[in-house]
């Protein structure tokens, strides 16, 4: 059963079509890059999967479930913006997540905080932008979910931390779970992807295995993206 399945999915904001007739299926064990220019519908798709938005047309299913509490229990979502209380410390956030999610792996979270030199006693509001993003990513990756939805997880951090985050994603690899990563930093993520999905104006322009694309086109996904979306 696909971990994420969209059929004829559409979303309108007023008269603007953010997504239109989108069909997409993501199988367990896959790490998938959700790639597209600004405004192509990446965040809208992720928010629909989380149930933060409701579709205007079509269907979206997470592990066979319509968006709702059951679907949410299976998915771990990293929003584009900070979504944790900034008066809390990193340690308090771990408590909070542990209360909320049965699948929260506290040991893993503590290990990652230590690896990145983050003080569990420090408040989020006292941290730099990069450190806040790291804490949030740690919370998200410490869950044993079936679907990880990461909306631009490496945008705000330095290249060394980017490598750590990507190796965390690889290290957490679970053949029963899928990871969907939306990003503009294609060159950085493409080595860890199984598949790439190109979104254009709310539709799937291309959905293929990364190595098959490289073989067929003789170029990296990053180069292909620049060619396809040349302005």
């Amino acid at each position, binding site marked *: 059963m696909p971990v994420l399945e969209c059929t004829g999915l559409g979303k309108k904001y007023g008269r603007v079509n953010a997504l239109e007739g989108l069909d997409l299926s993501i199988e367990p*064990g*896959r*790490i998938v890059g959700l790639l597209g220019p600004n405004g192509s519908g990446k965040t809208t798709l992720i928010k629909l999967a989380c149930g933060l938005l409701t579709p205007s047309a079509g269907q979206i299913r997470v592990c066979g479930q319509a968006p709702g509490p059951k679907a949410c229990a299976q998915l771990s979502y990293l929003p584009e913006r900070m979504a944790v209380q900034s008066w809390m410390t990193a340690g308090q956030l771990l408590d909070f997540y542990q209360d909320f999610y049965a699948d929260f792996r506290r040991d893993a979270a503590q290990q990652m905080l230590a690896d990145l030199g983050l003080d569990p006693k420090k408040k989020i509001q006292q941290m730099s932008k990069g450190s806040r993003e790291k804490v949030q990513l740690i919370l998200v990756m410490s869950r044993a979910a079936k679907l990880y939805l990461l909306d631009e997880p490496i945008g705000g951090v330095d290249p060394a931390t980017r*490598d750590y985050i990507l190796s965390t994603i690889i290290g957490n690899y679970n053949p029963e779970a899928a990871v969907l990563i939306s990003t503009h930093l294609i060159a950085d993520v493409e080595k*860890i992807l199984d598949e790439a999905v190109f979104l254009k104006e709310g539709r799937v322009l291309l959905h293929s295995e990364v*190595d*098959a694309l*490289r073989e067929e086109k003789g*170029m990296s996904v990053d180069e292909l993206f620049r060619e396809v979306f040349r302005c």
Partner: protein
Amino acid sequence: MKWKFSSDAPIYTQLVQQIQTSIVSGALPPGERLPSVRDLATEAGVNPNTMQRAMTELERDGLVHSQRTAGRFVTEDKTRIDEAKRRCASQQIQSFLEKMEQLGYSRCEILLLVEQHMKGEC
């Protein structure tokens, strides 16, 4: 192992080449136990499925073999390793010859240049 990837070829073929180089050069000696696919993938910063695919390819070439519970090992068959080494050498020579021909040298001239270079006259 140091990993480097170029953008014009599939990742898995580059993994196969790099592991093969380590085996034929002796950096990974015959009979050596390889780290798990997950550890190798983390080290190389690549997708675990891609690393798995590279391993399958190397197994097909007979350069590594897996033992159900013990893990994956470099072959102890020296002739296989020598064959692979010869194949690598022949690929290198081929690509060298192509580049020299692009520069406009004939095969005879190339041979002469190589000989001169080896004697330190070039």
